[in-house]
């Protein structure tokens, strides 16, 4: 039987034959003796197919077991699928086998009793391939769906949603009634609807299911609907629409030359379908001419003259006329050919009723998805706005209240972030380290701000341009210093675990907890700022100094002290912002410069000298940036460019910002 192979290779085959012979014997005796259990009988009836283990023929065997209604059916299928079902060579009976001392211990499927231990030479393992296991899996699902263990039922549902199959529809429906867990019941109902959409034989039921699910945002609904409206592109000879084969569910008729079907593409379709000769491209002309160069000439044209497309084409046409090369196809010829065909997109599903319903459902979902995306975008924008607000609030104090431009503001943000990093090196607990880092970052940058005000800025009051340049000097020195200390690579500042993850409202809308935290941090600092300015002595003195330094001084307020503290406060808030920003962005020596221009823009757009203006500015810039990114998602660099251009134009119309001080108080 296998003359060319080694004997060893043939052994399984021999065993199969032996088993088959044994089987014949037993089946003859089975009806008489009826000693086998019920499930064993079913297995024996189909033992040929089981032993053959072929995907194409195994179906009835699996069905027989699954539909037997016997309590052991599930266990058999499970063992089979897990490759734990063995056949005893001696009598062809099937058992569950487990490895044991000296071979395998066999268990009877019907009684659950251990039959004994056999050596592996007396047994054969049934090895279902993956295709068969998938079929068994499908059959198993109906048992799993009714399994007393809720986790099993959950697994079964997950498996259905991953591999939807028409065959699962019936078992799924059958299992709904017995379901006691409300959560699982809801899932089952949902899966049932999805399977109905795809596979129910009754079109009306499918349409109804689509209508039921048309408000659902989940990806799986769209995944169920999309294949229904998938189209394939086709072409038929003849210009009239009637040429489309009857029974085709046409999605649309296409005109060559339109956006949906460029002429080149249409013609290529014809070429691919052997309905038209291939077009002769410029490259092909060149190749053909090259192949026909003889003694410096192509035909009767000198090679030197072939330096233009027109000349080459003419030479090619001459060659074509002589029959040397395929004929040239002109644009007119292409158009003429195209005119003789009808191009159309056809749905795979032949029933317009189904495809129309699917399209309706998808459109309804799309609208809802769009609305939800807008909500998601709003959340994104809100979180970006709070980041800008956090970064800008310190600047709003120093620039807005004191009229001092601090180019080193970004470096204070960086300093705060590095403080957070250093604290995390000392305190490994992330929650505790953040709690320590925030006040520490405030203290460090507060001190740095006070030092800078005392040493540099107070000598330059009323000279904002010089302040700008001097603080820029400090900024490059600080940046380089950070580089010298911490190196150029990014340092991590890790958020505590409870800030990981995101709050998910549905498949479209979600927002990460860090961003929520930053939003509240921004609100907190707004409140702190308002409290200090409106309710404390420092705030009162600050406002007094801002409005009239000389008068304030004559009333016993020390403007130097007030300026120092205000500047320290602004710098301190920058430091805290640095910790917050460091949590989601990398901490580098250059992180400050990423925010400085946006921060200035926020303050300027909002209106100097007013915290609500800064809030409005941050909101506007945040929403604007997200809006532009949404309009042009592939290109965030371009989004920033357009945003800055927009701001420059905006300042044309509101030179003093969104919330402007009016009249004399604004000065000139």
């Amino acid at each position, binding site marked *: 039987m296998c003359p060319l192979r080694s004997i060893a290779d043939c052994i399984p085959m021999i065993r199969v034959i032996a088993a088959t012979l044994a089987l014949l014997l037993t089946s003859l005796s089975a009806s008489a003796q009826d000693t086998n259990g019920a499930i064993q009988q079913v297995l024996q009836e189909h033992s040929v197919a089981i032993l053959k283990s072929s995907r194409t023929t195994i179906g009835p065997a699996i069905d027989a077991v699954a539909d037997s209604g016997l309590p052991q059916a599930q266990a058999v299928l499970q063992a089979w699928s897990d490759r734990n079902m063995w056949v005893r060579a001696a009598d062809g009976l099937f058992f569950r086998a487990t490895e044991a001392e000296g071979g395998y211990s066999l268990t009877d499927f019907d009684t659950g009793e251990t039959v004994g231990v056999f050596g592996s030479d007396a047994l054969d393992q049934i090895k279902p391939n993956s295709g068969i296991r998938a079929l068994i899996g499908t059959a198993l699902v109906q048992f799993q769906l009714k399994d007393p263990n809720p986790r099993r039922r959950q697994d079964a549902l997950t498996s259905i949603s991953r591999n939807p199959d028409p065959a699962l529809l019936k078992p799924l429906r059958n299992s709904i009634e017995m379901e006691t867990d409300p959560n699982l019941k809801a899932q089952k109902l949902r899966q049932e609807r999805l399977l109905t959409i795809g596979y129910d034989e009754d079109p009306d039921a499918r349409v109804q299911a689509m209508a039921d699910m048309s408000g659902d945002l989940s990806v799986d609904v769209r995944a169920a609907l999309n294949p229904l409206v998938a189209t394939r592109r086709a072409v038929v000879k003849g210009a009239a629409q009637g040429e489309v084969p009857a029974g085709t569910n046409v999605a649309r008729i296409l005109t060559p030359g339109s956006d949906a079907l460029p002429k080149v593409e249409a013609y290529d379709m014809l070429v691919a379908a052997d309905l038209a000769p291939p077009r002769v491209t410029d490259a092909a002309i060149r190749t053909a001419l090259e192949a026909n160069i003889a003694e410096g000439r192509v035909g009767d044209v000198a090679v030197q003259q072939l330096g233009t497309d027109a000349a080459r084409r003419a030479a090619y046409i001459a060659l074509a006329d002589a029959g040397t090369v395929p004929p040239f196809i002109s644009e007119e010829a292409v158009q003429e050919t195209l005119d003789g065909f009808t191009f159309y997109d056809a749905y795979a599903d032949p029933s317009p009723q189904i495809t129309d319903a699917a399209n309706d459902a998808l459109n309804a979902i799309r609208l809802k998805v769009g609305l939800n995306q807008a909500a998601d975008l709003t959340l994104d924008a809100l979180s970006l706005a709070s980041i800008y607000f956090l970064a800008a609030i310190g600047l709003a104090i120093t620039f807005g209240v004191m009229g001092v431009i601090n180019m080193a503001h970004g470096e204070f943000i960086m300093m705060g972030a590095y403080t957070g990093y250093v604290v995390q090196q000392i305190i490994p607990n992330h929650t505790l380290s953040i709690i320590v880092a925030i006040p520490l970052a405030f203290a460090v940058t507060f001190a740095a701000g006070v030092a800078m005000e005392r040493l540099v800025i107070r000598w330059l009051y009323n000279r904002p341009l010089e302040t700008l340049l001097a603080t820029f000097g400090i900024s490059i020195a600080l940046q380089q210093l950070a580089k010298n200390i911490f190196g150029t690579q990014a340092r991590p500042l890790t958020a505590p675990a409870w800030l990981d993850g995101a709050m998910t409202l549905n498949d479209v809308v979600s927002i990460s907890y860090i961003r929520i935290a930053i939003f509240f941090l921004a609100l907190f600092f707004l409140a702190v700022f308002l409290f200090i300015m409106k309710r404390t002595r420092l705030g009162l003195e600050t406002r007094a100094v801002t409005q009239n330094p000389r008068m304030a001084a004559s009333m016993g307020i020390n403007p130097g002290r007030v300026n120092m503290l205000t500047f320290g406060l602004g710098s301190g808030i920058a430091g805290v912002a640095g910790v917050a920003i460091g949590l989601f962005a990398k901490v580098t020596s250059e992180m400050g410069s990423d925010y400085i221009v946006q921060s200035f823009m926020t303050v300027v757009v909002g209106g100097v000298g007013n915290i609500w203006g800064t809030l409005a500015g941050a909101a506007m810039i945040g929403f604007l940036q997200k809006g532009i990114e949404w309009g042009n998602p592939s290109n965030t660099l371009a989004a920033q460019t357009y945003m800055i251009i927009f701001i420059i134009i905006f300042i044309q119309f509101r030179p003093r910002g969104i919330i402007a001080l*009016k*009249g*004399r*108080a604004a000065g000139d």
Partner: protein
Amino acid sequence: MSTLLEVSGVSVSFDGFRAINNLSFRIADAEMRAVIGPNGAGKTTFMDIVTGKTKPDEGRVLWGEKSVSLLKMSEAKIAQAGVGRKFQKPTVFEDQSVQENLLMALKKPRGWFPVLSYRPSDEDLAKVATLADDIGLGDALLRKSGELSHGQKQWLEIGILLAQEPRLLLVDEPAAGMTPEEREKTTDILVEAAKTRAVVVVEHDMEFVRRLNCKVTVLHEGSVLAEGSLDHVTSNQDVIDVYLGR
């Protein structure tokens, strides 16, 4: 005499505060006028409106024989039309010499392109020298104006105004911080100027106003309280109330 400047029904408010309230004012060619009033009467704002620095909420400001509205013109255009203004604090270009200050003010094309190729002719230099003599700075022509004394700066600013050859001069407290001799000289310069053009002097100092010997307009809370000779207005009961009653 024809009307040079007519301000009628002008109001302006800053954040709810009415700085100018339905103010009307007119002045003729070659007339001297003193505007007095307590602090906050709107004197400076009135000048701001005429020179185009502040745009009024309502009202008309008409200029010249053709009654052109000044409200739609920029500051530079108004100045070119012939309105010169002297500020309360002397504002001259401290970093530049007296000569440069006066040359800049000389009535010549103001566009950037002609100015770029402008080089002073002998005639211009002579004119500047005469002007400098008039304001008592003939010797200081090449000195930086930042080095001048306070009074000299005041005169230089008046000289700058005269060099502009304006038809209307708005002068804000010219005598502030001057010695009596300097005041006298300032009076002479202004009176001389008023022979050929309209001059509006805003002043606190009654003595100084008396010496100008001209019609007086009293402003109070953004509108005209009284108008007439100094004796006439000082005997007006309203004026006395405003100046003394508070």
